[in-house]
């Protein structure tokens, strides 16, 4: 029988990454002067499990690397060594190395041995310090096959307590009979009288002969478990003359032979396929779901019964039942959505490490406080928000927090404070990154923005608007471009990424007191708050986050420009008017602008007015992908099914604006020609 163990690799990687996160977390909080035994134990267990798993699943390099970690931790755990700051450092580096080794193994890439060798050397150096214990992984003794046929005589005299360890001589006989031709003779001499017989004790002994291509070690191995509970002699018939007693005989170097498990062919393809395709869900969420389905079944059977012999007198019962069904459905929907929700600690947990490394590098003293780590958000959102958050935190540390002496001079505590907050607000999750550093230098930002022509030289800007400029493309005020942040590609990308998740980011800052970045994100990408609008017979959905305002069109603000394009004067701005019926080729109620409504939307930093016939209700809609069900359509981000069963299309504002611009240009060039 052969079992493909590569099917468990995915679980192994998942649990190892989780373990490494826990390990890192514990290491970061570790105070080397007062080590908590349980903390060390937790760290040790991770190394131990990763090693065990890696060896089992054939990841030899990983197993060897973790072996040194495990040994070091075992010695610290046993009190043979104390954990030094250097030790913590090396262990943290080891976590990094392991992560990349595992990630590479998972992706089926070649492993990079240069770094792992270096860290392993440092681990081994720590191990060698003040200890003579060798920690080499014992080589596995291969069983030789060039064995001669030998006849063996075995005398097996168990102690009376043999059964108490759960051992049964039958197991040994089974093992022996697999090796060769065996014959056992029972010796019942020491069996007491029936009256005094205790059936829980073993009073029998055996003489066994066995012949075959068998080594003494193989026989000893079978008796290994009971070596301490019996008298055992193993003699080959040939060397009977020089018979030797073997007591407690298991030689040190006997090992169960372990064939090295080769990584299965085709593993790479599978590994990449399953990448991130699974999700860990806590049991209580699944239980909730099962509960809810139970309720649904009850409601369904109630309604079913009602339907069988329905009379108008039961109409009240029916409407009760339907109300219950609605409630069940809503709860079920919420439960299902919750399955995709993960606590934000998945992202937050990287930060202690990042802050520690970076503050050491910059020579700053920083304390990191995290609140609301259990706040949940959608897995997809989580995966995409990680990098922008890292950028913002690095930015706060690099540009916000001052050097210790600077802070002392300005009367602040030497230790800077970075606070990460996460909480729910309405249907959004809000993440704040707050530092108590020097704040943004508004004068410098404005100066730079003017130099780049981002704002006019005489334009007057409010404070908040100035701070907002840091999200403009190509604007970085870092005097020295460090490798930390400040390459000038940062903040605009951060904002773009957050916007692409349907969220926004803003900054408030006060000179000398610090800055506060606030990110607002939808809890999920699967449900959208939408404004339903009507164009002719059709209903479209405009994402609520894109809508700035809605207004009745006044004729005096309409401006015709070259071609057929029209602009609308919105206070000091001019925005293009997009007639949705033209974009989608429909017959509208109204072609005259002043009879319809204008929905002012923003996408990719540009505003436009959508001309629609009517505004309908606002509601949450479940997004269905057009690409998977049909094909990608410019200007549409998806579709949904409304309460009455009709399909409504969801507008992609950025795409719509882009295509409107194209057609306007075409018309303009057409008119010019």
């Amino acid at each position: 029988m052969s079992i493909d163990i590569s099917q468990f690799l995915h679980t192994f990687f998942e649990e190892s990454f989780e373990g490494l996160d826990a390990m890192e977390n514990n290491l970061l909080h570790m105070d080397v002067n007062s080590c908590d035994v349980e903390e060390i134990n937790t760290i040790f267990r991770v190394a131990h499990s990763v090693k065990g798993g890696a060896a089992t699943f054939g990841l030899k390099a990983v197993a060897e690397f973790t072996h040194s970690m495990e040994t070091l931790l075992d010695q610290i755990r046993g009190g043979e060594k104390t954990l030094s700051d250097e030790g913590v450092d090396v262990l943290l580096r080891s976590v990094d190395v392991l992560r990349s080794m595992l990630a590479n193994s998972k992706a089926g890439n070649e492993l990079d041995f240069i770094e792992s060798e270096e860290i392993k050397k440092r681990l081994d150096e720590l191990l060698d310090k003040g200890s003579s214990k060798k920690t080499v992984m014992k080589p596995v003794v291969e069983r030789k096959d060039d064995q001669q046929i030998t006849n063996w005589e075995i005398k097996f005299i168990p102690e009376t307590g043999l059964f108490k360890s759960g051992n049964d001589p039958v197991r040994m006989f089974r093992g022996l009979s697999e090796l060769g031709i065996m014959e056992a003779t029972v010796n019942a001499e020491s069996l007491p009288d029936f009256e005094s017989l205790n059936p829980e004790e073993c009073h029998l002994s055996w003489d066994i002969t066995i012949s075959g291509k068998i080594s003494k070690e193989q026989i000893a191995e079978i008796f290994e478990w009971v070596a301490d509970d019996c008298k055992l002699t193993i003699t080959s018939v040939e060397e009977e003359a020089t018979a030797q007693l073997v007591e407690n005989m298991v030689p040190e170097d006997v090992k169960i032979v372990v064939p090295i498990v080769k990584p299965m062919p085709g593993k790479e393809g599978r590994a990449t396929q399953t990448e991130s395709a699974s999700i860990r869900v806590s049991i209580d969420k699944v239980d909730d779901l099962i509960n809810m389905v139970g309720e649904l079944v009850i409601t369904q059977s109630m309604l079913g019964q009602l339907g069988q012999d329905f009379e108008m007198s039961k109409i009240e019962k029916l409407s009760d039942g339907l109300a219950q069904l609605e409630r069940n459905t809503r709860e079920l929907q919420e439960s299902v959505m919750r399955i995709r929700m993960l606590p934000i600690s998945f992202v937050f947990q990287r930060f202690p490490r990042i802050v520690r490394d970076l503050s050491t590098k910059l020579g700053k003293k920083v304390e990191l406080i995290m609140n609301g780590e259990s706040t949940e958000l959608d897995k997809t959102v989580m995966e995409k928000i990680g990098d922008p958050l890292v950028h913002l935190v690095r930015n706060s540390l690099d540009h916000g927090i001052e050097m210790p002496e600077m802070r002392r001079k300005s009367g602040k505590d030497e230790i800077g404070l970075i606070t990460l907050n996460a909480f729910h607000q309405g249907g959004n999750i809000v993440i704040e990154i707050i530092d108590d550093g020097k704040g943004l230098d508004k004068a410098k930002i404005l100066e730079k923005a003017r130099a780049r022509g981002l704002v006019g030289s005489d334009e007057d800007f409010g404070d908040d608007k100035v701070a907002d400029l840091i999200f403009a493309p190509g604007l970085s005020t870092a005097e020295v471009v460090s490798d930390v942040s400040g390459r000038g590609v940062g903040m605009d990308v951060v904002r773009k990424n957050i916007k692409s998740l349907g969220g926004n980011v803003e900054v408030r800052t006060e000179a000398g007191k610090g800055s506060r970045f606030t990110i607002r994100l939808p809890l999920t990408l699967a449900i959208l708050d939408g404004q339903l609008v009507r164009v002719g017979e059709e209903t479209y959905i405009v994402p609520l986050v894109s809508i700035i305002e809605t207004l009745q069109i006044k004729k005096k603000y309409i401006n015709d420009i070259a071609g057929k394009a029209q602009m609308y004067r919105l206070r000091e701005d001019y925005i293009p008017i997009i007639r949705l019926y033209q974009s989608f080729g429909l017959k509208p109620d109204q072609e005259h602008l002043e009879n319809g409504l204008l929905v002012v939307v923003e996408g990719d930093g540009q505003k436009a007015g959508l001309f629609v016939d009517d505004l309908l209700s606002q509601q949450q809609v479940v997004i269905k992908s057009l690409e998977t069900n049909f094909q990608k359509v410019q200007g549409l981000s998806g579709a949904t099914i409304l309460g009455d069963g009709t399909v409504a299309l969801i507008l992609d504002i950025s795409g719509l604006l882009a295509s409107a611009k194209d057609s306007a240009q075409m018309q303009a060039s057409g008119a010019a020609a």
Partner: protein
Amino acid sequence: MSSILVVDDSASMRQMVVFTLKGAGYEVEEAVDGMDALKKAKLRSFNIVVTDVNMPNMDGISLIKELRGLNDYRFTPLLMLTTESGADKKQEGKAAGATGWMVKPFNPEQLLATIKKVIG
């Protein structure tokens, strides 16, 4: 068919052991640590218990000691899954009442061969 309780805090190892044993037709229940195992072992009796040694909450050796103290498990085979570095653990386990041990890493075939010898 014989019933087996598999105890390991590592999900991947547990999956492998359980998959192997179930595949061979055994009735298998899993536990994530010693505490969990003890709870499950008290609810019903198993023909054999296979446990990891290093686990949070209650380690394998304490589990074996506890199980041996229970009337239902006085003679039940209790196997430890140890690593090659845990030589002293074997002795500790034996003293606690373990029947025997398997040294990690092992492959599914080796596991099955050992189990078969113990409970047939």
